[in-house]
């Protein structure tokens, strides 16, 4: 217990003194996850919205596959991206392995199914409720997907926050493709794993606290968006009950 309280005190000291090593790791983590979320959202929102209104042969099989990807462990994603980026892989010529870009790519791969599946669900629910009326106004399926996604923007904002939360809290993928190189590809989760194994508990605990704080802020943002939307819009549409977990 003493070691825990000592470690916690030292961790708080590192946080409040804005320790440069800790801050660099935190900033790198946030950047990697922010870029990954932007890329995954740019693709996932479009794909999910299109899937939400389109009907084609094999759609159910595609949705089953998409839902399966939701449960893929991050280490498996890391392994696949590693194979893609390794010198003999199809993207080996990029020379991205063990770099910031590799970590962004891995997290984007990890988060893309989350954004796509949740967007698809939100837009499909809206299509079921309102698609016919938009169709009667003359909106064809592609335009309908855009209009419905725009109309469900607060629900999709929650999806984006959840995606960021998933990205920032994963460890397996960035560990494999980033290599956890000090000052270069070390992020919060990989640093926590490393420092714990080395016995440097204050830094690990400090990073853990910051990570928790980030996730707490995200959850507060999600709740604030939901509350604001209910207050402002008198909303009755679908709003997924999402949260962010570590």
């Amino acid at each position, binding site marked *: 217990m003493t070691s825990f309280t000592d470690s916690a005190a030292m961790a708080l000291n590192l946080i409040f003194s804005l320790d440069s090593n800790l801050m660099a790791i935190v900033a790198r983590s946030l950047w990697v996850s922010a870029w990954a979320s932007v890329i995954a959202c740019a693709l996932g929102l479009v794909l999910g919205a299109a899937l939400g209104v389109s009907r084609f042969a094999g759609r159910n099989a595609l949705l089953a596959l998409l839902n399966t990807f939701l449960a893929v462990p991050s280490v498996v994603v890391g392994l696949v991206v590693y194979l893609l980026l390794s010198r003999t892989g199809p993207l080996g010529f990029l020379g991205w392995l063990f770099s910031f870009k590799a970590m962004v790519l891995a997290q984007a791969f990890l988060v893309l199914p989350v954004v796509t599946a949740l967007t698809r669900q939100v837009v499909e629910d809206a299509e079921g409720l309102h698609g016919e*009326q938009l*169709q009667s106004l003359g909106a064809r399926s592609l335009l309908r997907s855009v209009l419905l996604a725009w109309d469900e923007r607060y629900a999709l904002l929650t999806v984006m926050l959840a995606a960021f939360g998933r990205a920032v809290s994963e460890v397996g993928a960035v560990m494999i493709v980033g290599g956890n190189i000090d000052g270069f590809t070390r992020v919060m989760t990989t640093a926590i794993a490393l420092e714990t194994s080395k016995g440097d508990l204050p830094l690990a605990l400090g990073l853990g606290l910051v990570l928790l704080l980030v996730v707490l802020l995200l959850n507060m943002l999600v709740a604030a968006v939901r509350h604001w939307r209910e207050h402002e819009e008198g909303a009755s549409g679908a709003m997924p009950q999402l949260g962010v977990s570590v």
Partner: protein
Amino acid sequence: MSASSAPVNHVFVLKQAAVRFGLGARALHALSDVSLQIARGERVAFIGANGCGKSTLLRLMHGLLPPSGGHMHRDQSLRHAMVFQRPYLMRTSVQNNVALGLWLRGQAWAESKRLAVDALHSVGLADHALRAARKLSGGQQQRVALARAWAMQPRVLLLDEPTSSLDPHAKREVEALIQQIAARDPDMTLVFASHNLGQVKRLATRVVYLEQGRVLADLPVHEFFVSDGLAQRYPQAHLFVKGELV
């Protein structure tokens, strides 16, 4: 849907039209063997118990559903608009919601917004143009939906129980508005579904009674409500009218 030879004066021609949901033994036959002709300028009311096929028939006529059997022709050269029982208004201003319908029909956005204000004047909601559409009362929302239809200057207006979810005051307001729209263009074809027989008497010139997806009676309004022959010729329709008037 057939674009076959229909008399020039007819806006809709249905020949043994059927709509079926699902396949095989578990299929739901929403409409069966519906033959109907509606001429330009007619005011037709569809009445019948819940689930008799009124809304399905309107959706078929508006092109939102394909016929599963038979033929359905509608005059594509005329502008059609439909107002639903619970109008879908997007999470944006009243003005934008009205402008959306025009924009989807190919009007420039700036012009659509200008015309939307004119339409809102017509329904007495110009003062609410910049308010969030979903914050309006049910009656006001239905008036916005009518303004959206009005702005399109339709020659054929389909209304699916436009007042059934409103309180008596809002019902009167919306009905007066429908009368106003109909009076503006005596050549406009009005087809509506309603449970309100008083409203049917006031708005329609012809009544079509449906039961279990079939047209059982199709009469001018004065014959439907006044003629003693209804009981002999169409006993089910007579019973329905008696039941509704009790």
